[in-house]
């Protein structure tokens, strides 16, 4: 099991457990867990509405690629620890991480 924590827009935290070997993005996990995330482009790094801030565990994640960095640059509220949840695969790298939902609501 991979365990990490999601923090909603009100600052409330919820632990999440995902079985290993499941090929999902963090955005898909957010949607499946009924978090109100827009994800307009469906995970193509084209809309930046799946924005999350990585409060813990940023260094463990693979670095953002060009498409993700391009989109993050369009976000006025992007912080130095911002990522697009659709570009983050759910695997061991997420273990113990804390992700805060930042994107606009649906």
């Amino acid at each position, binding site marked *: 099991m991979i365990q990490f924590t999601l923090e909603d827009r009100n600052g409330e935290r919820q632990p999440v457990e995902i079985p290993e070997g499941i090929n999902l993005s963090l955005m898909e996990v957010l949607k499946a867990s009924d978090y109100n995330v827009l994800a307009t482009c469906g995970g*193509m790094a084209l809309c930046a509405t799946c924005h999350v801030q990585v409060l813990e565990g940023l260094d463990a994640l693979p670095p953002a690629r*060009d498409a993700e*960095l*391009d989109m993050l640059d369009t976000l006025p*509220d992007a912080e*130095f620890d911002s990522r697009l949840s659709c570009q983050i695969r759910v695997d061991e790298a997420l273990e113990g991480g804390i992700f805060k939902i930042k994107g606009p609501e*649906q």
Partner: protein
Amino acid sequence: MITTDICIIGAGPVGLFAVFEAGLLKMRCHLIDALPQVGGQLSEIYPQKPIYDIPGYPEIKAQELVDNLMEQIEPFHPTFTLGERVEALERQDDGSFVITTNDSTSVHCQVVVIAGGLGCFEPRKPEIQNLEQFEGKGVAYMVKNPEQLRDRRVVLAGGGDSALDWTIFLANIAKEVTLVHRSDSFRGAPDSAEKVFELAKEGRVNLVLQSTITSITGSGHLQEVTITAKDKTVTTLAADNLIPLFGLTPKLGPIADWGLRIDKAAISVDTTDYSTNVERIYAIGDINTYPGKLKLILSGFHEAALMCQSAFKYVYPNQKLSFKYTTVNGIPTF
């Protein structure tokens, strides 16, 4: 005042195709879009992406589909108001409507079709507490007339192409140009990024990297911009203008206040003709909702066809509509 049969709000693929369906029934259309170009999400978000589920096209690029739609509706001579957002809708005594935009363009029409997709594309605004208070008083989200910035102290924010391009352009016009960007490199065109770094070296542009704007102050008009760096150091700059350039994001906007039945930011419709709860107003494409709705271009095209069959009765109250294939009559134009 512009006069037409059908006023279509939104020039995305669905609004564009509605012109074709209306044209077959000899109804004229005027389209309004908040964006400066037609095409909606296809042109704004993914112009170069291929689409695979348009019947008859195994693969077509989004912008190509928009170009083809424009060619397909050309015989019906639709008219356009682009770069303006529809704000208000007023019912006339005879049941028709007058629609007004934020730039005071008025359109008189018999039927209103809302093809507004995800909503109106509006500028992404940084989270600065009293930002809206300074809009029009030093804060703007696009450069409409660069001459107005001549000899002013301008702060730009963002790291994409438009932030870079305007920094380069304004370096020759403004008294002082500062570009604030959250990272230490630019994702925009490498040529432009290089030029900005050169201008900074020459002292013609003030480059503030790894930083964000955290507050603004002024009495009546913008006077100061406060910038916080990644290492938490805070600097305050005197500024006459602040232009955050972070692209666009869709919002439902003024349509939400028109008395239409709304369900989760979409307009509820009757699936027999995609009419709303308000007579003579229809909603098609991504902006509507009904059981089983699929937010696909294909679905929007189907909705446009049924909507036009129903709208006909308001445009030609004394005529009976008879359905004909385009293969029978070709494309009869006006």
